[in-house]
Structure formats: C-alpha cells, structure tokens
C-alpha cells in the first residue's frame, strides 16, 4: 500500500517521482475523479520536455514500458480536462436533464451549444456533472495520435500499470470505477484518445 507525503507525492516502489511544478496551477482541494488521457507524443521524454516549458499536463504519466511517473503533486491542480465539459446527463441519463432548457441549448449552433452546456454543467457539483480540473487527477499514457479516430494502442504493460495506479488512487480517495473517465467522455476531444485503455 502506497502513502502520500506532505508534498502530495505518492510514495510507492512502482512510482517514479518526476515533479514538474511548471504544470501545477494552484491548489487541488479535493479529488473526486480520475481522467485518463493519451499524450500525443512518441516517448515520455517528449512529454517531459513539454512539461519543462509549463502549460498543460497531468499528475501521472505511464510510459509505453509501463513505468509510472508522478509529474505533479496531487495537492495541486493541473490543466488536463479542458475549458468546456460535456453534459453528463445528456450522455448518461437523458431523463435527468432539464428537458426544456436542454432542448433550447441543443437547438443552438454547435459552437454556442457547447458553451451553453458547459455553463449549465459547471453550476452542478460532482457526480452530477463530469469532473473538472479543480476536482480530478489526470493520468497520461504515452501514445501518438494516428488519425481523426485513432491513437496508438495502449500497451499491455501500460494497462497493467494503469490498473495498479488507479487501484492505489481508489484507496486513497475512496473512488470507484464510476469515477474514472476517458478524456473524450468528459470534454470535446478526438474519440481515439485513450480508447484502448482498460481498468476495473
């Protein structure tokens, strides 16, 4: 069983600590969910090089050989979800949406619709909406974008490490598999991203 130290780093023999404060943006006050991503980079080093410059990033990175790195403190917020989140009620349970206001939003142009849906969703609390940067941990899996529907297949070693890491995070934050999402479920991203990631 791993522990979390005062700096928000996961102390575990399988986790390599490689913190980039450049991708941390303020305090992460609570963890209610996990979002699984793919990097669109060919190697872990490409991602580390990007992280040195700052900007977007996630808390953990799993290399193709299954090595797990922690790249940001879990007490800190990372920009990994994106600005606009999708509507959870529309995807999971349409009956729980406010049908009148939803119909009005869905009649809008796509660009206006996604902005309105985001505003509507952000007024809700998790789990009634999808996770956002300020209540979730991001896990990146190294892998390149291939085309408009496909990313590299997640390796067996990556999926084994993903399962291990997620299981540890379940214990620390009292989460279940219902709290783990692939990035394109949560925001408007290429549907191939992390599509071959698996966990229980």
């Amino acid at each position: 069983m791993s522990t979390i130290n005062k700096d928000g780093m996961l102390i575990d023999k399988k986790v390599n600590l490689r913190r980039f404060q450049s991708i941390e943006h303020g305090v992460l006050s609570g963890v209610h969910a996990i979002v699984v991503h793919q990097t669109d980079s060919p190697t872990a080093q490409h991602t580390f090089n990007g992280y040195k410059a700052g900007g977007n990033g996630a808390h953990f990175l799993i290399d193709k050989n299954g090595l797990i790195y922690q790249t940001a403190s879990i007490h800190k917020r990372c920009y990994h979800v994106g600005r606009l989140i999708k509507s959870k009620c529309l995807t999971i349970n349409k009956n729980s949406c406010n049908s009148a206001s939803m119909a009005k939003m869905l009649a809008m142009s796509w660009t206006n619709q996604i902005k309105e849906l985001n505003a509507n969703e952000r007024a809700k609390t998790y789990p009634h909406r999808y996770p956002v940067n300020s209540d979730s941990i991001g896990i990146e899996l190294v892998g390149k974008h291939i085309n408009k529907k496909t990313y590299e297949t997640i390796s067996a070693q990556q999926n084994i490490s993903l399962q291990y890491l997620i299981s540890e995070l379940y214990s620390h934050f009292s989460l279940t598999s219902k709290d783990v999402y692939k990035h394109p479920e949560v925001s408007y991203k290429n549907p191939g991203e992390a599509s071959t990631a698996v966990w229980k």
Partner: protein
Amino acid sequence: MNTKLIVFVVSLFLISCAYTNVLSNNITDVYVADFGSEDIKRCRPSDVDLSNSEAKEFFLRAKNVDYKVIHDHYNYAPCYIEGTLKYKSKICEWEIRAGATGHIKCGEDTKYYVCDTCEDLFKTK
C-alpha cells in the same frame, strides 16, 4: 539607430507577407465535396456551411500547427466538411471541422490547421 530599426520592422513585415502567401500562392481549386457528422442531431450541416471560397479562406487565415496543439487546446467537433484542392498543382484532400480545426492531406503528408479568426465563416447563414 533609427535606420536599423526601420530596416528591422520592414524586414519583419516582408517575412510576414511571404509567410502569409505560402498557402495563398499555392492553393487553388478548393471544392467542398461532402459533409459528415458523427452526431447529426447535435452537429449539423449549418454548423460548418462553408462555400468553396470560404473553405479556401479558412486555410489562408489558419495557422499550420502540430496535431499536439489541437490535442491540447481545441475542441473536437463531431461534424465536418471535406473536399479537394490543388496544392502546388498536386490534388490533395482536406477537412474542416465545426470547431475551426482542419487538415490538408497530400499523399502521405498531413498538415493540421487551426483558425482563431474564422468565426464569421462558421456563422449560421
């Protein structure tokens, strides 16, 4: 000193003009051939209703970026228009998505584009 500054500014302007013209001098015969949507109830033809000349305008105004920029910073729209164009006399395929992202594929080479100044092209007519 002032002369040096003027030469520098003029050089920057000329470089900028040359860069802008990389596509405009080389893209011709831009034709919209089809519309596609992975979610037709939410992303419709009116969301990406560009004419041939507007599609050309999109690529002229757009920035050529690594796909990583789209991956990190742009929304993936479920609908798009697609078609053909000539780039340096070669016939290429292109796609423009409702989220103002696109690509041009010439043979095996795919270049990706984003346009932050194209809102007018996507306005519902």
